[in-house]
């Protein structure tokens, strides 16, 4: 198969699956079709990523599409989380189909939006052009907005509106940033292929206009940062994460935020090279990251809603990833490892929280107790994901956080290290209290019990095993992939 065909296949495969889903006559069959479409796309994406690792970047579409180490890594994590969440959607919506609350129309709408969002996020990752990347983010915003209100009710509509408005303004800012970067190429003889290809921008970064690049990067950071949920731009995030159905929350938190952060990672080396590699752009990222960690910690302590709690954990961890990305080569490596760890862990967390929410009829943590006895798979998974999220050893997040802390100390960023330690410390104490109370204690009267099924056990044990394994050993090919991805963000000197 021709190299470029892989990239087109990733973008186009969701379409026939969505078409099939629109023709099927039962909600369960519609969901299975969507799941099959996602799994097929994921398989193609993994094969393509493996080829990138062995044979270098793929290109297609006259230079508009490309897949290199950085985007291949993000694409594999995206499709992994999407595949897991699609399987979980069968469990989660299966319950609603039995209860008669998910009808055919809603299931079809969900399938179309679910597959559309996958294609939109893939477009962001495989485009070799800042303009096309921006179109992908815009499409992602619109298609995911209506995934929040699969069940249109007061709260989910409120969350949809906030998400749509705040992120549209963010995306508009990102467009302004893209325009400014285009303006900065005025004195560069770029010629054909579009002035916004980031490969070209990076090659000729030294001759870009530094002042305009600075203004452009600021707009891009604020615009895409809104979508990442970096404090203080995170206003929409807890609402959207808590009101969306659990499989959607898992995608939001597990990877959609990282898609926007990926756009910032792409422009970071351009901004650094154009401003003379003095760490101007990295420091900005460092500032936003540190602030996010501290702000999230404050909200985590006072939270009572389980899914909102997990949402603030996303603000914290995306802050940690941004922090790492601003800390030079070692920090970028750790940040990318953290991206994988956080995605796995947060998907697991939202799976368990969503299913427990269905069993207990509430997401209020004060009314959830004894989950280890009532639903061993989900209760145990939630406890484990909390332990992993707060950075307890030997889970993988402990390792990547340690690497980020080391990068901060080696670089002499005392303030970043302090913000990170303070935030992590508060989160550790605050979240552990909730986790223990939900796992043990007496089962409330109204709560249902559920014996583990093979699928639910696999959905919990799979990510958990990966998190434990990655905590003690990073396999050779993964290390290699992360190294070459990190080189693209921060070239070794």
């Amino acid at each position, binding site marked *: 198969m021709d190299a470029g065909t892989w990239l087109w296949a990733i973008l186009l495969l969701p379409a026939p699956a969505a078409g099939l889903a629109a023709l099927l006559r039962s909600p369960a069959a519609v969901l299975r079709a969507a799941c099959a479409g996602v799994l097929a796309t994921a398989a193609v994406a993994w094969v393509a990523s493996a080829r990138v690792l062995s044979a270098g970047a793929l290109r297609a579409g006259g230079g508009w599409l490309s897949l290199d180490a950085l985007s291949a890594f993000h694409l594999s994590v995206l499709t992994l989380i999407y595949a897991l969440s699609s399987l979980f959607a069968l469990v989660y919506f299966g319950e609603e189909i039995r209860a008669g609350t998910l009808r055919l129309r809603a299931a079809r709408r969900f399938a179309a939006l679910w597959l559309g969002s996958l294609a939109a996020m893939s477009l962001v990752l495989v485009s070799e052009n800042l303009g096309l990347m921006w179109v992908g983010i815009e499409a992602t915003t619109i298609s995911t907005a209506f995934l929040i209100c699969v069940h249109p009710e007061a709260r989910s509509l409120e969350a949809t509106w906030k998400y749509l408005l705040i992120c*549209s303004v963010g995306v508009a800012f990102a467009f302004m940033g893209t325009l400014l970067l285009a303006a900065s190429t005025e004195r560069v003889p770029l010629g054909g292929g579009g002035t916004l290809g980031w490969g070209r921008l990076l090659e000729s970064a030294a001759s870009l206009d530094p002042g305009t690049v600075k203004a452009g990067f600021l707009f891009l950071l604020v615009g895409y940062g809104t979508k990442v949920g970096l404090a203080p731009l995170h206003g929409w995030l807890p609402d959207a994460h808590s009101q969306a159905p659990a499989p959607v929350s898992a995608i939001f938190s597990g990877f959609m935020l990282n898609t926007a952060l990926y756009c910032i990672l792409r422009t970071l080396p351009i901004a650094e090279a154009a401003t003379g590699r003095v760490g101007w752009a990295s420091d900005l990222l460092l500032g936003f990251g540190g602030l996010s960690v501290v702000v999230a910690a404050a909200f985590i302590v006072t*939270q009572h809603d389980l899914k909102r709690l997990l949402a603030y954990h996303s603000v914290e961890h995306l802050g940690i990833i941004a922090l790492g990305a601003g800390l030079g080569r070692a920090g970028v490596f750790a940040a990318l490892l953290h991206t994988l760890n956080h995605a796995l862990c947060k998907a697991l967390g939202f799976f368990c929280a969503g299913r427990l929410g269905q069993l207990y009829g509430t997401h209020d943590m004060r009314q959830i107790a004894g989950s280890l006895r009532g639903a061993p798979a989900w209760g145990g998974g939630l406890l484990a994901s909390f332990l992993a999220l707060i950075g307890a050893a030997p889970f993988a997040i402990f390792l990547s956080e340690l690497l980020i802390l080391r990068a901060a100390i080696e670089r002499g960023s005392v303030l970043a290290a302090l913000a990170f330690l303070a935030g992590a410390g508060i989160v550790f104490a605050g979240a552990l209290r909730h986790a223990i109370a939900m796992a043990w204690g007496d089962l409330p009267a109204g709560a249902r019990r559920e014996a583990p099924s093979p699928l639910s056990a696999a959905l919990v044990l799979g990510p958990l095993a990966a998190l434990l394994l990655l905590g003690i050993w990073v396999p050779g090919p993964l290390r290699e992939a992360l190294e070459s991805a990190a080189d693209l963000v921060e070239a070794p000197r």
Partner: protein
Amino acid sequence: MTSGADAVLAGVAVTNFWLLGASRLGHSIRVTAAQGILLGFLPLLAAGADGGALSLRVLALVAASVLLKGLLFPRLLFRGIREASIRREIEPYVGFTTSLVLGLVLLAVSLGIGTRLPLPHRPVSTLAVPIALFTMLSGLFLIVSRRKALTQVLGYLVLEDGIYAFGVLAVGEIPLLVEFGVLLDAFVAVFAMGIAIHRIHREFDHIDADRLKVLRG
């Protein structure tokens, strides 16, 4: 042709003040449409000033933006008012007089920043960057200071107008895909917001964004 661009930009500034002081919803929709049409003709003036011939591409861009902003959006918005039978007053958080005074402050700030911003490409008109910034800031202010979901959509459109003006006048060559991208963006966003408003209205019987405040903390 520079004087033509100057006149259009001055007109845009006037529409911004008009919107800041407007108390009727229908009126605001019409003024926003007028602003969109004014800006729609900018690519013609910009192309003329650069001495280039009017290409088919420029004409297509002008036609698309005038049709979209001058005809389609107002229609969608007026239909929104009728369907949701909204009260026609704007109900601001910040009074109209205060809004106008703040508008003056925003204009001064934009002139201050806009004339100092070091752009490698000399804009078609010296007013281009300041007025684009002023329009963006007015849009943002309208979003945060007005109560109805529909007025927030208008604010978003004004913000997009500002970015469009900047893109057309202050950036040299940008790919066609991106030029149409911003129009597509405005269209899709307004469309999506329209659907959301429709659903909110069906569920709540009102579209006051300030009453959407169950979710906190």
